[in-house]
């Protein structure tokens, strides 16, 4: 019986039937197990009924004059703006005690914290109860390194996201940069005047990178390291290598390929995964285009770009002649108009290599044929 079954399964029609059955089963399984499109409950309208547990808190905390005094003499308002909370991303999902867990009806009035910041630092870890993965990422950030060193102003969850008024960070991209600007004011001012920042701030353009798109959101690294530098082309190429995105702005994606194919691009590609001490500085996108002050090369003009390239080349190639930067083809792929010599050499090999290789293979094939058949 078993053998007959095995024979059936391994026979050709048997195999086909089995495969068909598995295929149908896999489709059925996929349909049943497919996660329903993530349903994000629409933020409750300000008119939405307030749960009893919340209104109990509001009985006191709707008082705008309510304050908590700290031991350093400052005070914090304990007023909760209900309207702001009901507009927040957590409205309808969380109630007061989900975060303020220690507080019940007769909670202490006037806990002894030294300052407002001490209170905030003491309570921000509440977020990790739900957002644990995000929280762990922050532990690897340079911001957390500062916090560990005792720098109290290092940013924590609520500094960027707020508390009662948390908005969906995916919808409010401009908010990301504004959050960073709270501390990195100067950088933000430079960024806002760049081609990317201008589009984000003035036109609310969602395509351009905000701070976190290059620096990451929660795992922010120190940008001065060689590793960050050598990975920066990859950061730029995420957008500048995307043809559909670049087509919208009439930007060529060859900027990425031409850099990567260049001598320095090869160095960056082959050493970006190494630890810092094994790397040496190579030229990357930022050196010619800037960092936070990136300008459109088209608006900057060819002459200004050439002058920049000249300066960048000579910062390492001190012996270089003024003509040396012409070795860089300015991201243009070789063509009869741009770099005809390079184009001619390339075209010659592109024709000659397949021609010669196919010819040699045919010759060898014929040789073997004659030896075996014509003997």
């Amino acid at each position, binding site marked *: 019986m078993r053998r007959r079954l095995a024979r059936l399964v391994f026979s050709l029609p048997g195999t086909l039937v089995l495969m068909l059955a598995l295929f149908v089963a896999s489709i059925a399984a996929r349909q049943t197990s497919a996660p329903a499109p993530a349903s994000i409950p629409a933020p409750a309208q300000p008119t939405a009924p307030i749960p009893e547990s919340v209104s109990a808190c509001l009985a006191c905390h709707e008082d705008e004059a309510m304050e908590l005094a700290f031991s350093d003499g400052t005070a914090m308002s304990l007023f909760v703006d209900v309207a702001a909370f009901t507009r927040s991303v957590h409205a309808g999902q969380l109630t007061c005690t989900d975060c303020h867990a220690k507080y019940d009806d007769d909670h202490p009035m006037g806990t002894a914290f030294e300052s407002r910041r001490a209170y905030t630092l003491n309570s921000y870890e509440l977020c990790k109860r739900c957002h644990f993965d995000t929280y762990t990422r922050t532990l690897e950030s340079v911001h957390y390194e500062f916090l560990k060193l005792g720098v109290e102003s290092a940013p924590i969850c609520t500094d960027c996201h707020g508390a009662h008024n948390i908005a969906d960070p995916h919808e409010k991209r401009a908010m990301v940069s504004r959050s960073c600007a709270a501390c990195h004011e100067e950088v933000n001012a430079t960024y806002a005047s760049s081609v990317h920042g201008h589009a984000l701030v003035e036109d609310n353009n969602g395509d351009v990178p905000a701070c976190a798109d290059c620096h990451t959101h929660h795992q922010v690294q120190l940008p001065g390291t060689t590793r960050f530098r050598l990975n920066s082309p990859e950061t730029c190429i995420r957008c500048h290598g995307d043809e559909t995105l670049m087509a919208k702005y009439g930007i060529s994606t060859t900027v990425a390929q031409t850099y*990567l194919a260049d*001598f320095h*691009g*090869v*160095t960056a*590609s*082959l*050493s970006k*995964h*190494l630890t810092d001490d*094994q790397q*040496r500085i190579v030229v990357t996108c930022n050196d010619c285009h800037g960092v936070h002050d990136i300008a459109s090369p088209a608006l900057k003009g060819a002459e200004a770009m050439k002058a920049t390239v000249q300066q960048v080349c000579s910062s390492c*190639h001190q*012996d*270089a*002649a003024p*003509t*040396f*930067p*012409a*070795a*860089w*083809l300015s991201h243009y792929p*070789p063509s009869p108009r741009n*770099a005809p*010599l*390079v184009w001619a*050499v*390339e075209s010659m*090999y*592109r024709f*000659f*290599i397949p021609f*010669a*290789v196919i010819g*040699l*293979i045919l*010759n*060898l094939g*014929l*040789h*073997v*044929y*004659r*030896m*075996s058949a*014509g003997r």
Partner: protein
Amino acid sequence: MTRKNTVEYVVRFSRWARVQHAAIIVLFTLLLVTGLPQKWPGAAASVWIVDHLGGIFAARWLHRMTGIVFSGLVVAHLTVAITGLLSGRTKPTMFLGKKDFSDAINNLRYYAGYAEVPPKFGRYDYRQKFEYWGLIFGSIVMVVTGFILYFPGTLARLLPAELIPAAKVMHSYEALFAFLIVLIWHIAGAHLAPESFPIDTSIFTGRIRKDKLKHEHPLEYEELFKEP
């Protein structure tokens, strides 16, 4: 000239020729191993090779040092070859003549079955000559473009800087070409071909079997063993 009664051998390659061949094997392999990963830096194999060589800067150092030794070999070869020819110590057996082109056509006709016998070859057949001259010109291209890439700043002071990317393209494609030729033509032709399989040892030992010489280089054989 001859040995034993059973198998007779003829000296085919001088010690200098054998040393050069061995050196080429080592240098060519080293140059490919350190060079090809730079042609395809995105490939996982390239990253693996470069890491095991101690990083891209170490790999480039090794590539350049090997290149310098290779350049020395090219210069030495040309010097010996030219002085040998000028002094009359060596015969001009490697030069291409009209016969080589007609041999190529006739040999292809033989392979395809349009001729009964293959053409009679001399000391070097047309394939060996084409490969030799390909190697000579390829080596010169690699040495010249290699030095341009080694000292781009110096070149830009003397000549137009567009020669630098042109040299880079040429160095890269010529390397690929040489690699493919050696892979397909030289190893397959000289070692895996039905007559030579598994390996033609004459370039390593310097000797060739007398009957093999008669079969593959009949004109040279006739000249060597002319009836007085």
